[in-house]
């Protein structure tokens, strides 16, 4: 077996491996949470990194937690705290909405079980 043949085969194997890795990664790692206040996007969070963070925009301040590829609101100033009680959301069709503060947290990426187009 010639040396360049081995090199060729190794390159082929490495390329294939990389290609597969690329698909695996893009299928998995692209979930982000988008936080917007009063229709203005204020932050994007990678759902693969667990974090607790506080965002402030004008007179709205909210504390969110990212854990196990899901996100929730821990603290926010509103009358009923429906958004806090809702707990974690995980799929692209779920959403946390805090109407008094006009806060929306939505998820972007492809991890939608059963391919639902919407929920109500």
């Amino acid at each position, binding site marked *: 077996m010639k040396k360049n043949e081995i090199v060729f085969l190794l390159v082929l194997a490495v390329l294939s491996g990389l290609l597969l890795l690329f698909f695996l990664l893009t299928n998995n790692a692209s979930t982000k949470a988008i936080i917007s206040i009063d229709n203005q996007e204020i932050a994007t969070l990678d759902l693969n990194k667990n974090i607790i963070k506080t965002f402030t925009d004008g007179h709205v301040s909210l504390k969110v937690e990212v854990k196990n590829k899901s996100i929730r609101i821990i603290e926010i100033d509103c009358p009923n705290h429906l958004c806090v009680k809702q707990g974690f959301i995980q799929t692209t069709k779920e959403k946390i909405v805090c*109407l008094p503060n006009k806060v929306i947290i939505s998820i972007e990426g492809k991890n939608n079980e059963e391919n639902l187009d919407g929920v109500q």
Partner: protein
Amino acid sequence: MYFVLKIKNIKIILIVLGLLLLAVGGYLLFKQQQSTLPSIFEGRVLMDTEIDLTLYGLDTKRLNTAKIGGFQLVENIDKLSNALLEDPLPGSIAWLNSSPETTNIAVDPDVLAQISVAKEYYLPSNREYNIGLLKLSSLFKQSALEDRLPTTEEINTIIAESNLDQVTIDLEQQTISRPLGTYFDLGSTGKGYSADRLYDYLLTQKSVQGALINAGGTIKVLGLKGSKEEDAIFKIGLQSPDAKQEIIGTVSLTDNQSLATSGDYYRYYTIKGQNFSHILSGTEGFPKTYFKSVSICTSSALNADILSTVLYLIPQEDGQKLLESLPFKAEALWITSEGKILKTPGFEIQFKELNKLEGGYFYEEK
């Protein structure tokens, strides 16, 4: 010789493996491109709720233009339909409510269209569905703040003052006559009306091949998501009234179909630890408790929106009769306060395993 053969084997194995991986990669890439059309999405807080637009089409730049136009349309309807707006636009609902006139008041076509359709349901609902009860909602809101139950006198005074029988509409002149004391509330119509108007507007946009309009839970569907057969179907998960993250079943919608749900779980007033649905009875004031939710599937989103509220307020048998008397086809799904699920035969839904859900749901076929 033996050594060479071994290497040759490895060579073959490697080649096969490499080709296989390339094939898988290529297939995935192909699948990604071949599936649904490109889409854009935006959600905005409007009409005291969230309006979501998902548009499908090849030219995403033009889709964006269509999207912006769509949101402008809803912003306009919002300004006209918001009863609590200070400094109201002439012809808007807030303007009508504060008008000292009683006869032939000129109002905006967007407002009149909502009032005239909603009024059609007043008598068929045995006066349970009344859009002239803005003051009743305000009373419950205020009572919740003070944590006291509204008194029967307070409720009866408001109901007596708001007599929809005495409201007359002139569609040609675009005017309305109403007794003073009737304060209109378009909370049960604005979302559906906006979804219908969005649908009509998006139809005129050539770049839009498909759309999912979600106006605060009132959903209307347009066109296709792609070229395959299943791309004509938009699957909507119906949330459980007891646990929002759970889904009772999925409903498949196609072009020009709408789905609306009214329930006791989405908005309510909490008084003395008890939750009262925001859907108030036009005869008793306090909300009816027949159902946890009612869902309606029909072509017009405005009618779906209104019907889900109407049927929430009247017993199931009455609702069924009302549906049958309509000049158009409308299907319903009721979830009673005990968790029993009833539906008209035409309401197509793929149920989940109901016994595994929180809330004790069970389906009763009729």
